């Protein structure tokens, strides 16, 4: 059995976007240990735990990550890429990445040479920042248009229980779902629990749309990351690292679930914080809630700094708190009887 940190680091070190399946395959392997798991046509992986009722509670965490895709390979080994999800292109120059071509190759984004830098560079178009494969004319034999490009930074430990790495959005939540599956796999459950590791969240909540249709749950929780605190971020925009999972409250989320999560956390003495949002949540919950005739849905989020970079940073204590809360919530039957 892996610790939460080991699972997170293994999932972070693998990639999942488009046809790159590593993290989805690892998620399937881990989820299969504790649930009846299946792969779908996309990257989405689904695991089932049977309960003592017909009521189905769906837990979602997306398996895909922000990435880039090759749109041109020139004669000198330089690539043009497009974004797959929200990427801060100001931080790309001189960054090292992996190109998932015929084989995996390292590449470096071009930076403006010092003698040509005038401090006025506008970062308005990722296609202007070329990617250097170091392969020269040989690049065309390894890389094709449509190949995906991912960050390549491996996870690392920081002070105390804090860690940094890539794709913690949303492998941190995937880690929690796998840990919850492990803890609940030999328990008597009041409800059916379906674990969804969903595809293509970063491209507009797509994978969860079809997965929710297929599962047709009675209730759902989207487990994701949200903004962690930092010097440049105002307190009302973020959650505190180490403060526990952030329970979503918004007009688009089911208030019964928000309240039941708070009540459960209070009763069981599990750290939590509230995340109130004005409109939709920007997570898969927005899509789940309006699937078929509608699904009561809420968010539970892990505070994360530097979101969508390869130096995302979180506190493992928050993953523990989210796992604790999810388990207690499920064992209490969700809002089946509320």
């Amino acid at each position: 059995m892996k610790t939460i940190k080991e699972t997170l680091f293994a999932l972070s070190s693998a990639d999942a976007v488009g046809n790159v399946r590593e993290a989805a395959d690892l998620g399937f392997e881990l989820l299969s240990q504790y649930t009846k798991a299946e792969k779908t046509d996309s990257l989405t992986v689904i695991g089932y735990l049977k309960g003592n009722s017909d009521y189905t509670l769906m837990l979602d965490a997306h398996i895909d990550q922000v990435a880039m895709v090759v749109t041109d390979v020139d004669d000198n080994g330089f690539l043009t890429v497009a974004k797959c999800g929200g990427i801060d292109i100001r931080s790309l120059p001189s960054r090292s990445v992996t190109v998932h071509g015929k084989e995996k190759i390292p590449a470096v984004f071009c930076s403006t040479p010092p003698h040509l830098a005038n401090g006025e560079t506008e970062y308005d178009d990722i296609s202007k920042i070329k990617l250097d494969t170091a392969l020269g004319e040989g690049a065309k034999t390894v890389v094709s248009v449509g190949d995906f490009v991912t960050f390549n930074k491996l996870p690392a430990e920081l002070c105390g229980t804090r860690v940094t790495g890539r794709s913690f959005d949303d492998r941190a939540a995937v880690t929690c779902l796998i840990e919850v599956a492990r803890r609940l796999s030999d328990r008597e459950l009041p409800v059916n629990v379906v674990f969804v590791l969903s595809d293509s969240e970063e491209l507009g909540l797509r994978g969860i749309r079809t997965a929710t249709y297929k599962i047709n749950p009675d209730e759902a929780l989207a487990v994701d990351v949200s903004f962690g605190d930092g010097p440049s971020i105002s307190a009302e925009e973020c959650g505190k690292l180490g403060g526990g999972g952030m329970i979503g409250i918004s007009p688009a989320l089911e208030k019964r679930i928000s309240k039941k999560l708070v009540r459960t956390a209070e009763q069981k003495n599990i750290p939590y914080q509230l995340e109130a949002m004005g409109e939709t949540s920007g997570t898969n919950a927005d899509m789940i809630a309006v699937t078929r005739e509608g699904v009561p849905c809420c968010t539970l989020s892990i505070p994360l700094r530097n979101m969508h970079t390869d130096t995302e940073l979180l506190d493992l204590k928050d993953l523990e708190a989210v796992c604790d809360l999810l388990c207690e919530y499920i064992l209490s039957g969700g809002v089946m009887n509320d």
Partner: protein
Amino acid sequence: MTDLLKRLCLLDGTSGDEGAVRELIISEIKDFCELKTDPLGNIIAFKKGKKPSAKRLMLDAHMDEVGLIITSVTHEGFLKFKTVGGIDTSALLFRCVRINRDITGVIGGKPIHLISAAERKKLPKCDSLYIDIGAQNREEALKSVCIGDCAIMESDFTLMGDKVISKALDDRIGCALLITLLKEESEFDFHASFSVQEEIGLRGAKTAAFGINPQCAIVLEATTAADIAGVAEENTVCKLGAGPAVSFMDRSTVYDRGFYNAALESGIDCQPKSAVAGGNNSGAVHLTREGVRTLAISVPCRYIHTACNMADIKDIENALKLCRFMLNGICGGEIE
């Protein structure tokens, strides 16, 4: 040489904090030459050749690399820093750093979701950046780091065909070349300096050259190669794979034309550095005492002063050949 280069590059040696690099170099060369460390921390070496030299020649490479220095710690436990040497902010934003050779941190910022469309196009000011080591407050941070500790932008050492990608190729390439020359048999006597503090104004080379008091000098460097997509041919400076660059002039030095011509006519693959840009220890060395005839041999390097310098192994090998050729020519009296 690649293995030596790897070991050199993966050591952290921000200007003024070159100790680890110095230790490795001393352990490499101590059995092959006389050496001492001068008051600033330069390694000053003398290689006994088979014959005395016609000219008192100094070879120089700098040990330091660009990096960061911690200047304060906030109440929340974030580290404020200044850059040591010229680093573009794009090379810092959301980058993993290693402090004091040991502690991992990341340079944090506002996530893309929370910044306006206008802000997304401009780099943040460098002084708004901070290092996050995961400490929960100032006290916890100060258990791991001190004000004045140095940090480098963390990188792997990657070999890709004949290209190498790493931090600090500027100027561990020069160090690797000079170590190689010191360890092999030499026809002639020569002097060497592995100098400190190049990146903050050629400071180490100034005292090293004073101490050695050479008549002639060869500075071994890495220089900007802008042979990348989107840069006009006339702005490329030099190209990877076309051999080491030799300079006629940069922002610090007008080079000795006799040495420059001899290098270009050597028959060894090399290229003129086709821009009056940048500078190196030549700027300090050539003005030492009564003046020193100086040549710079620079290995072309893309993405210089970032975590991912890229150079061509063939250029490093040709730089070594050119070095030997110039050394023997100057010391043997054939190159006037």
